[in-house]
């Protein structure tokens, strides 16, 4: 290939880095280049082109004002000088659109983010073929290399004591939720025995075909159309948000009500860098005994848990996407984990403490069901996280953490892999106590430091990070998520759940662009920080120590009480005064095992 003489000139008052990069690539390829300084007039460029006997002229323009007139004048001058047929003209930069360049008589226009290689191909008269790199995105490992070793002996021994007694109780009990899961396992979901253990709405559906209000069955034709969209919309080149291995995996939560809209959101968020997606079911599902069947759409928030809905969603997921189906707070906890495991979910969510103190389910029922669910989680090798959302009711973090650590030990004893989920939030405790008046870093950092000082377990902050810091204004909302994501990266935690910029908007469904907003913000936070990080003040360490000693005190109280379950009712892990109310759904349904 013949080497060429190339004149490069920025048509701006300042230099364009893009032209310098192209010059370097052309030099490396053996071409002769002449880079003019900034702020040169079109007339001077033409003179230089004549003087240097340029065969190619590459211009750049960043500023948008008057760009069409300026470039039009340049082309006129080139034509006036009689060299238009001797030179190839290329123009690129932020202000350039390929269609505008063509309209003005340039041979090629390069829009923003054009690869340097494309400009080199233009100079060399080659067609530019983008390198089709196979996506390198792999499914993330939320557990990393965490060992589950305890660093705090006294807490470890209390947890073992509480856990052993709780498991002794569990081996003696049974519940409709546990029995339905066992029937589902035996292939009898929807059968007579199953329906006897279910709510009226579930019986009406299976026996009479009556759907609860707001639900509809999705037709086959609709499903086929959706499958076509999915087939043509595979995410070939998903964005990878993390720049460093210590930066956390990023999860979004979906549950628009309709599995089709969920899939549209999932595909969009996968493309924009989500590492995992979390299935949210309707709130009434937590109060209903039994699960529906079929491909079902729901008019309100929360997507129905059914085998077909989950199958369809699974089919749409990219291989690199982690999928969590949550099961932490209702009367179908064991069945949900079983269904999730069968559908191929990677993760689930179980926390009998939050589910019973803040989620409305009776503690006894949810403890029995939660433990059964942990057995399924272990069987399907699905790590489960334990959200400590009771903090949002007003329960102090140390009490929520004491409960979470008990559940951690129970999960470990049952062979499962628990994931700690402290909230990165502006909780009522903080509002009243003022720990976050100065900054949002110290107290959240203290939570992570306290947990890390107790056990080497994976941490997935949630859910979503920045809870109660978001407003309806989208920039504020995205920035808040972005800062919290940066903090999570600085604290070396394994995962985060992020909100959309619709987090504080309650007037209607969340939109996909609102989800993309915060993924972009999170990516920018990771890019901004790289290996650097946010630094808490010395208060974080003091608060971490305070949290640890308070956790220890609560665990001693639970051990002294002798029953984890009774401690839930007695308010040791969150009292009514603090805002924790033992739930009533499913009360008195736990029986002695038959």
């Amino acid at each position, binding site marked *: 290939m013949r080497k060429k003489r190339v004149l490069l000139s920025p048509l701006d008052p300042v230099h364009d880095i893009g032209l310098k990069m192209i010059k370097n690539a052309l030099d490396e390829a053996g071409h002769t280049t002449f880079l003019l300084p900034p702020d040169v007039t079109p007339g001077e460029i033409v003179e230089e082109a004549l003087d240097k006997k340029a065969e190619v002229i590459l211009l750049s323009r960043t500023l948008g004002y008057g760009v069409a007139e300026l470039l039009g004048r340049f082309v006129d001058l080139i034509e006036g000088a009689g060299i238009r047929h001797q030179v190839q003209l290329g123009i690129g930069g932020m202000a350039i659109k390929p269609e505008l360049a063509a309209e003005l008589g340039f041979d090629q226009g390069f829009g923003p983010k054009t690869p340097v290689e494309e400009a080199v191909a233009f100079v060399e008269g080659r067609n530019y073929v983008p390198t089709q790199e196979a996506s390198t995105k792999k499914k993330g490992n939320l557990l990393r290399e965490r060992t589950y070793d305890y660093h705090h002996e006294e807490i470890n021994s209390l947890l073992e004591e509480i856990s052993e007694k709780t498991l002794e109780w569990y081996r003696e009990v049974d519940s409709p939720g546990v029995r339905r899961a066992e029937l589902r396992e035996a292939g009898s979901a929807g059968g007579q025995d199953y329906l006897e253990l279910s709510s009226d709405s579930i019986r009406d559906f299976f026996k009479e075909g009556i759907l609860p209000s707001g639900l509809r069955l999705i037709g086959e034709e609709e499903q086929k159309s959706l499958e076509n*969209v*999915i087939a*043509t*919309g*595979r*995410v*070939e*080149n*998903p*964005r990878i948000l993390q720049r460093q291995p210590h930066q956390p995996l990023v999860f979004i939560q979906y549950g628009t009500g309709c599995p089709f809209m969920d899939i*549209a959101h999932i*595909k*969009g968020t*996968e*493309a*924009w860098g989500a590492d995992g997606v979390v299935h949210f079911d309707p709130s009434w599902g937590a109060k209903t005994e039994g699960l529906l069947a079929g491909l079902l759409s729901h008019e309100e928030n929360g997507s129905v848990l059914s085998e077909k809905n989950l199958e369809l969603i699974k089919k749409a997921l990219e291989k690199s996407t982690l999928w969590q189906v949550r099961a932490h707070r209702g009367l179908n906890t064991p069945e949900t984990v079983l269904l999730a495991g069968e559908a191929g979910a990677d993760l689930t969510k179980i926390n009998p403490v939050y589910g019973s103190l803040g989620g409305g389910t009776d503690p006894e029922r949810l403890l029995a069901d939660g433990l059964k669910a942990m057995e399924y989680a272990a069987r399907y090798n699905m790590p489960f996280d334990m959200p400590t959302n009771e903090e949002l009711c007003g329960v102090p973090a140390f009490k929520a953490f004491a409960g979470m650590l008990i559940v951690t030990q129970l999960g470990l004893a049952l062979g499962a892999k628990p994931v700690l989920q402290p909230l990165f939030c502006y909780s009522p405790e903080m509002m009243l106590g003022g720990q976050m008046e100065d900054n949002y870093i110290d107290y959240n950092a203290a939570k992570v430091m306290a947990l890390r000082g107790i056990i080497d377990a994976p941490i997935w902050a949630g859910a979503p990070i920045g809870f109660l810091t978001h407003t309806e204004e989208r920039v504020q909302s995205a920035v808040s998520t972005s800062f919290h994501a940066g903090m999570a990266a600085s604290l070396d935690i394994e995962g985060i759940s992020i909100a959309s910029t619709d987090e504080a908007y309650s007037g209607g469904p969340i*939109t*996909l*662009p609102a989800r*993309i907003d915060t993924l972009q913000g999170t990516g920018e936070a990771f890019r901004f920080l790289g290996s650097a990080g946010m630094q808490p003040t010395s208060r974080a360490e003091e608060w971490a120590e305070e949290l640890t000693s308070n956790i220890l005190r609560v665990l001693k109280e639970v051990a002294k009480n002798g029953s984890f379950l009774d401690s839930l009712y007695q308010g040791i892990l969150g009292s009514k005064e603090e805002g924790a109310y033992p739930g009533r759904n499913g009360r008195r349904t736990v029986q002695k095992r038959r």
Partner: protein
Amino acid sequence: MDAKTRVVDALDIETFLICKNEEEGRRISAGLMESMGCSDFDLVYIHHEGIGARVRIRAYVNRPGDRYTWLEGGEKDA
């Protein structure tokens, strides 16, 4: 009163379009703005991946130096 005349400078449409590629996304964006009666528009941002494109489409109502529609007596075709 045409509500659009009170827009200080521009309307931004932020959305996600289901489309096969960026080119189709551009065409749909143009069609969307035309269907909304906006003739002076620009596609500020478009990025296609997977099932569609995230776009920010801008319809200018008043550009600096115009006789602004929001000034008394300044109405023009928005």
